[in-house]
């Protein structure tokens, strides 16, 4: 799992989308993150670990390649704008609703 900076993550995510255009899926996972870098021990005390409240973890994969990034409240504004645009630009293969144009055509035919 490759941990990247937010900007680099966006670049790699774009590349993932482009790679999977003909076949395959892109999986994106979003989860709240408290900054821990060590697993919680089953017994014994946690060593001086302060959970932080303002971060989230973003992961992406195409089934083979994995990338991830941590977003904190400081970066969220800039990151979110770029990220939203990225999603909207790349998820463009879905069906468009054209009920209106169909009914117009049928009216014109009559």
């Amino acid at each position, binding site marked *: 799992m490759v941990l990247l900076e937010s900007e680099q993550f966006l670049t790699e995510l774009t590349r993932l*989308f482009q790679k*999977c*255009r*003909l*076949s*395959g*899926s*892109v*999986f*994106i*996972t*979003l*989860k*709240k*993150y*408290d900054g821990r870098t060590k697993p919680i021990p089953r017994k014994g005390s946690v060593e001086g670990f302060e959970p932080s*409240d*303002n*971060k*989230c973890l*973003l992961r992406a994969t195409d089934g083979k390649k994995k990338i991830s990034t941590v*977003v*904190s*409240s400081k970066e*969220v504004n800039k990151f*979110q704008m770029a*990220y*939203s645009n990225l*999603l*909207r630009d*790349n*998820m*463009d*293969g*879905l*069906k*468009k*609703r054209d009920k209106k144009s169909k009914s117009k055509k049928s009216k014109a035919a009559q």
Partner: protein
Amino acid sequence: MPQYQTWEEFSRVAEKLYLADPMKARVVLKYRHSDGSLCIKVTDDLVCLVYRTDQAQDVKKIEKFHSQLMRLMVAKESHSVAMETD
């Protein structure tokens, strides 16, 4: 694993599930360009909510919801500066 047919219902229940336990819940997005399908899943490993679509109009809604949850996760819960003036 309930699959929701309406976006309204899904987003309501999903947000509630996240707010119940923010650390446990996660959001998963799956996009397939070859099939033209998008699927969003919200789960806390006990309950799993799924919404699938192939409509372009849902992309914006799903992307907005995704961003909304991201903001919730990143928002600090500790008292803000404004409240300290009391």
